[in-house]
């Protein structure tokens, strides 16, 4: 192999081609010959570098990593002379590369195993070649050329992969049902309507490794005999939609989507559909209604989507993470995947760690890891050295687990038994200064808002729950409230059609179970133990610590603080609105909450 000291990558994205990318390549080669550099510098084609609309045609020069944009063939003579002969970067065509910092996903922490997230931040999501270089589309090629659809399903079944959207239904079984259903055409849907507050695992995968999802969907399509797929992505993820569309376009150009993929009889194509911002559309039947152009409301099951799904045709619907896992299961084998995790929950799972924990962000851990390991080892412990109080798993419909559950292994069964759920992977860590009643009220506010209104228990029940919880937080709780809450929770769970209603009472039920004393303190003692609920707290100034600096008085928005300079100040509790500004601005820690 000849040693080239420098490589020029020229983007041949269709838009760059239209703007003359091939003329640039010809001009480059001509100039390199003319200036005697042809044996030293190599010109290569690549599918995409920067945004072709803004920068095309553009080239990337390595090893310097210099990005030249908006070139014409007349510029090439000078460019080659200056850059490659004299070694000077030509500033006129340079584009400033913004320094990238990744707040969401750092380097793997101890105990992390990256399977789904392995390519995130490593490859360029807008360049299909980057994905192919890391064995991308090899699993699809293997499936089509070496395996029958039954063997593909069998591999997925044996791997023990379960739905990563939350319910944990075995993926292989789901494919079996769809495969066995009579009817044509069949559809493949990817549920990318990630709506849980604080959860962004799927967004990250779509934005950083979209081809893994596309490949997983194509494999599923091959397995069940489908030729059309839809990715239902929420409109709040414009970047993910944009990346997906670029990825689909490139996959089509490479012949990895479309008709007769890899010279076989198998054809498959994909479309991205955007949601309109309704949380309930993450529920599969509501999602399909939304794709059909109808109002996004769930319907009764059975018939399940595998029998009658999109446009009443057999449909397989999985979550982003499930599809992104599939190619590696096929490539590395069922045994490899099944070697990770617990008896009934195999593989790894991504979580969005949020709240009062030191290392917030995305993590991927093997199933069966304990909550304690996630919080204290991967997450680096509780912020500011405070104590752990509770962790909420599974998004707004999950439950809050107390310290006594810290050694619980994270798998589908253990979490459900403890009164929470796996969900799509949101994890909110709460420290000792969190009021559990207030948290329950917060989540209820979300689910109440997002209830589609089809079922009375969910529509009216969540509203009643929220009213009672708000009353308790406002210090207006009364005897009997806890019992009413319990009864409502039970009925909403029992009588709602879809997962939203069935899961909505979870935060209330679990906090009632584990933190009942806090509810009682609110109702009977009119006291908020965590000092959060405004109606039940008083801000006071400590006489010993106050220096009379007047900072608090000057900052109080309602002039509730009085006092002379160098004299102890006082807060008028009747005027005070409990905004907490005085506490923040005091330099002497003289303000306390009682």
């Amino acid at each position: 192999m000849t040693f080239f000291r420098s490589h020029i990558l020229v983007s041949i994205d269709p838009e760059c081609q239209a703007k003359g990318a091939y003329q640039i390549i010809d001009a480059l080669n001509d100039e390199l010959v003319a200036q005697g550099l042809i044996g030293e510098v190599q010109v290569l084609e690549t599918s995409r570098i920067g945004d072709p609309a803004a920068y095309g045609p553009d080239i990337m020069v390595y090893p310097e990593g210099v990005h030249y944009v908006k070139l014409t063939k007349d510029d090439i003579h000078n460019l080659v002379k200056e850059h490659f002969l004299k070694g000077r970067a030509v500033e006129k065509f340079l584009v400033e590369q913004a320094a990238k910092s990744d707040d969401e996903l750092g380097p793997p922490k101890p105990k992390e195993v990256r399977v789904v997230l392995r390519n995130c931040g490593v490859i360029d999501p807008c360049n299909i070649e980057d994905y192919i270089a890391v064995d991308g589309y090899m699993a699809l090629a293997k499936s089509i050329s070496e395996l029958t659809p039954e063997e593909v399903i069998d591999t997925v079944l044996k791997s023990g992969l379960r739905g990563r959207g939350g319910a944990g239904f075995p993926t292989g079984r789901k494919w079996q049902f769809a495969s066995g259903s009579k009817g044509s055409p069949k559809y493949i849907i990817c549920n990318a309507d990630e709506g849980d507050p604080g959860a962004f695992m799927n967004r990250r995968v779509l934005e950083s490794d979209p081809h893994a999802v596309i490949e997983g969907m194509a494999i599923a399509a091959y397995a069940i005999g489908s030729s059309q797929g839809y990715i239902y992505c929420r409109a709040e993820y414009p970047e993910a939609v944009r990346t997906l569309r670029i990825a689909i376009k490139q996959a089509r150009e490479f012949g990895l989507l479309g008709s007769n993929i890899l010279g076989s009889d198998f054809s498959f194509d994909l479309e991205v559909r955007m949601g309109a911002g309704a949380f309930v559309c993450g529920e599969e039947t509501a999602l399909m209604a939304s794709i059909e152009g109808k109002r996004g409301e769930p319907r009764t099951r059975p018939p399940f989507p595998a029998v009658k799904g999109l446009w009443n045709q057999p449909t397989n619907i999985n979550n982003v993470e499930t599809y992104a896992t599939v190619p590696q299961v096929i490539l590395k084998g069922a045994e490899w995947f099944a070697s990770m995790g617990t008896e009934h929950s195999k593989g790894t799972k991504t979580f969005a760690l949020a709240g009062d924990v030191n290392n917030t962000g995305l993590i991927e851990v093997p199933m069966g890891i304990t909550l304690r390991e996630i919080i204290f080892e991967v997450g680096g412990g509780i912020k500011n050295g405070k104590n752990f109080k509770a962790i909420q798993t599974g998004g707004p419909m999950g439950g809050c687990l107390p310290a006594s559950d810290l050694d619980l292994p994270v798998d589908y069964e253990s979490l459900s038994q403890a009164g929470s759920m796996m969900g799509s992977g949101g994890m909110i860590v709460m420290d000792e200064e969190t009021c559990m009643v207030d948290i329950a009220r917060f989540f209820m506010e979300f689910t109440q808002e997002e209830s589609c209104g089809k079922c009375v228990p969910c529509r009216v029940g969540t509203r009643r729950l929220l009213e009672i919880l708000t009353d308790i937080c406002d210090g207006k709780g009364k005897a009997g409230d806890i019992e009413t809450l319990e009864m409502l929770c039970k009925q909403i769970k029992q009588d709602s059609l879809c997962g939203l209603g069935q899961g909505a009472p979870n935060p209330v039920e679990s906090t009632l179970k584990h933190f009942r004393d806090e509810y009682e303190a609110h109702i009977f003692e009119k006291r908020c133990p965590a000092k959060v609920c405004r109606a039940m707290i008083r801000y006071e100034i400590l006489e010993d610590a106050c220096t009379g600096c007047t900072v608090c008085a000057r900052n109080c928005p309602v002039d509730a603080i009085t006092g002379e300079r160098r004299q102890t100040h006082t807060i008028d509790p009747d005027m005070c609105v409990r905004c907490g500004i005085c506490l923040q601005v005091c330099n002497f820690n003289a303000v306390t909450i009682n």
Partner: protein
Amino acid sequence: MSKVKSLEDLKRVREEALKKQAAKNTASKIQIIIGMGTVGIVAGARETLKAILDFIEQEKLQDISVRQTSNIGMDSWEPIIQIVVGDKPKVSYGKVTTQIAQQIMQEHVVDGNIVKEYVIEIQ
């Protein structure tokens, strides 16, 4: 315009993609920087550069990158080359003819001994 029509095609695309990935790998262990200002070129830096590239090819050296820079600021010493191996200090050599370049490549880069007689600066 489907480029990939079979498994073989896909493997070929993967090989090409891997090559490009290698080209992107800018953090080579050994970096050779050649001063290619006008003075350097007049003094014969092109020939020096070619000699270095030839040497790398002959000896099939790996994990090495050759870069250019413009005038280093010591015109009377041109052609100048600078060699950085790993996290060791940067060594600048002056008046590097093609023969000296080959010698430096062998002794410094391959054997790991700085060729003291041509050193002008160690940073």
